């Protein structure tokens, strides 16, 4: 299911050098897998890989809309705080408002979308630069989470709710299905639809996009709202996985997500990038962390490696780009 769209996503959207960058990244990943697998026989087991999928779903879900946003040359630093806010509101609306859980989940998603929409409004209507707008809401949303929760964590959800986060469906972690579906949808949306094309156009030349009659502001509003929505979804998955809500959930997600997207070859200046690349970036980071840990490398050393990989891969990408002279 997941395999089908990826080659297609890779095929046409990107100029070939970018495609090359992603393929190259995939190759590096492949080599890394082989080496790590050789070093530790527990690494390349289906079990472990699927489990890593489970652990990385939350970041992955947010990385997809973040890819959209960065492709348009924007950024969203508030996602981590939105996760926190949504997690809290899930628990709060369920326990304190006494919503039935399904309703509470829906409510959570709405809140996430609203938070994102608020970012979008600031960015499109008031023309506040995305970085500034979302740095401010980063503080605001986290603050709301703390204020609403009054530092209380909500626990003891009904068993069925833990299905999303903890059990398997057809031998694959439940939330991984969510991620896979999201990837396929996002991939197709970016690669095949007028919406996706609009995003690339905005990132490459916003004025020309406007002059070509593309709905620039609407598109931006949509992607920031989407970003909030997915942060909300990711919060639901997270809560279901760890069975409790705390106001400090999702702290620091923004940097993980951005690192993932950028590693996946999406240019921070906008205009280029693919979902396929983001997926590879996601796998890269998670599997490097996991593989290194399994081969006995400690957490601190691991993040050093991640940082280095991030810089180097971007360097290679930009060198290719320059060779291409774009």
């Amino acid at each position: 299911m997941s395999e089908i769209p990826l080659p297609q996503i890779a095929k046409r959207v990107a100029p070939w050098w970018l495609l090359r960058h992603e393929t190259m990244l995939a190759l590096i990943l492949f080599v890394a897998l082989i080496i790590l697998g050789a070093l530790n026989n527990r690494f390349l087991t289906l079990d472990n890989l699927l489990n890593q999928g489970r652990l990385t779903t939350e970041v992955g879900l947010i990385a997809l809309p973040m890819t959209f946003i960065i492709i348009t040359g924007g950024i969203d630093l508030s996602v981590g705080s939105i996760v926190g806010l949504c997690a809290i509101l899930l628990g709060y609306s369920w326990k304190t408002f006494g919503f039935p859980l399904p309703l509470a989940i829906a409510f959570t998603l709405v809140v996430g979308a609203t938070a994102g929409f608020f970012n979008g409004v600031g960015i499109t209507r008031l023309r506040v630069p995305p970085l500034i707008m979302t740095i401010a809401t980063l503080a605001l949303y986290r603050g709301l989470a703390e204020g609403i929760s009054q530092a209380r964590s909500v626990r003891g959800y009904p068993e069925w709710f833990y299905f999303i986060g903890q059990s398997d469906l057809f031998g694959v972690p439940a939330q991984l299905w969510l991620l896979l579906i999201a990837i396929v949808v996002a991939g197709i949306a970016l690669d095949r639809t007028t919406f996706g094309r609009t995003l690339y156009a905005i990132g490459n030349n916003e004025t020309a996009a406007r002059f070509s009659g593309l709905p620039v502001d609407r598109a931006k509003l949509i992607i920031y709202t989407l970003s909030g929505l997915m942060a909300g979804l990711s919060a639901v998955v997270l809560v279901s996985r760890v069975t409790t809500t705390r106001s400090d959930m999702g702290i620091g997600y923004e940097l993980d997500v951005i690192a993932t997207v950028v590693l996946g070859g999406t240019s921070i200046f906008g205009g280029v990038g693919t979902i396929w690349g983001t997926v590879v970036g996601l796998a890269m980071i998670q599997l490097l962390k996991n593989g290194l840990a399994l081969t006995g490398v400690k957490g601190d050393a691991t993040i050093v490696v991640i940082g280095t990989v991030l810089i180097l891969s971007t360097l290679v990408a930009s060198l290719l780009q320059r060779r291409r002279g774009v």
Partner: protein
Amino acid sequence: MTATTLIHAEASPRRLLKALASQEALLAIAVIGLAIIVGLYNPRFLAMRNLSDVLLGNAYIAVAAVGMSMVIISGNIDISVGSLIGVLATVSGTLAVEGAPIIVTWLAPLVVGILVMAFQGAIIAYLRIPAIVVTLGMLSILKGGLIGVTGGKWITDLPDSFHLANIELFDAVPMPVFLMIVATIFAAWWMRYSAPGRTIYAVGGNAEAARLCGISPPRATVMVFALHGFFAGVAALLYATQLRVIQSTVPPNLELTIITASVVGGVSILGGVGTVIGSTLAAILIAEIASALVFTDVSPYWIRAVQGVLILITVIADILRRRRMARA
């Protein structure tokens, strides 16, 4: 047309002054206004002691924000500064415990800071990798490296002479406050009166034009980052010498606090605009807000939310003001 051009000319110098003053003025008013309001609610807030403590405890953020403002004005950004300050503090502290001469322990963070940041600047300028990517990578490298090396062992038993931050000049001005003021004034002066200082604005404002004026944007970038490293070093020194324990870990979210100070200070994320006076005032304001919320018995649970709202308001106010300026 003619007539309007002339009117334009008449009106403008005044508007120019407003333009330059505005965000700084707005912040200064906010700082004073907030102090008065809180003072009415709880007079203790206005006690000399408290006001100076607010500055004392947050001077290092203001100092770091000075460098950050330069970086942002030059059209870049740095999110590794928090980690770097953690590293530099540890470097300085370790030297002190190892019994290095105090002066060395004080200079070391400055030197190391300059080197690390200049290195980053070089990567950004010459390999042309976006600043946000390089510094994002460097953030985790520094963070991981620090813990890897120190194992997070706290640094204690620091010699008394090491505590630069505890020196009071003329038994009145605490060193951190003094350094904050000096750093700000020096930087402001330098950015206004030195040729290299102006190039920061030139490069941030219009790199192409700068190039045609014989300015080398890459060199400017490296210079800016080196300076940023210097101020990060000073900040680290204040951070390290304030207490008798150095945590030798990375202070959480420090980089965001610093960037926020710059942005609230009116530095345009698009480059070319802003002053360090603004960022210092903003740093003070943010610290003041934190203290004020305790003094006004705001529920601790809501403190961060209120901070968020206030930041959002200042930022948006600044944006709207610019827009009006631009339209006028």
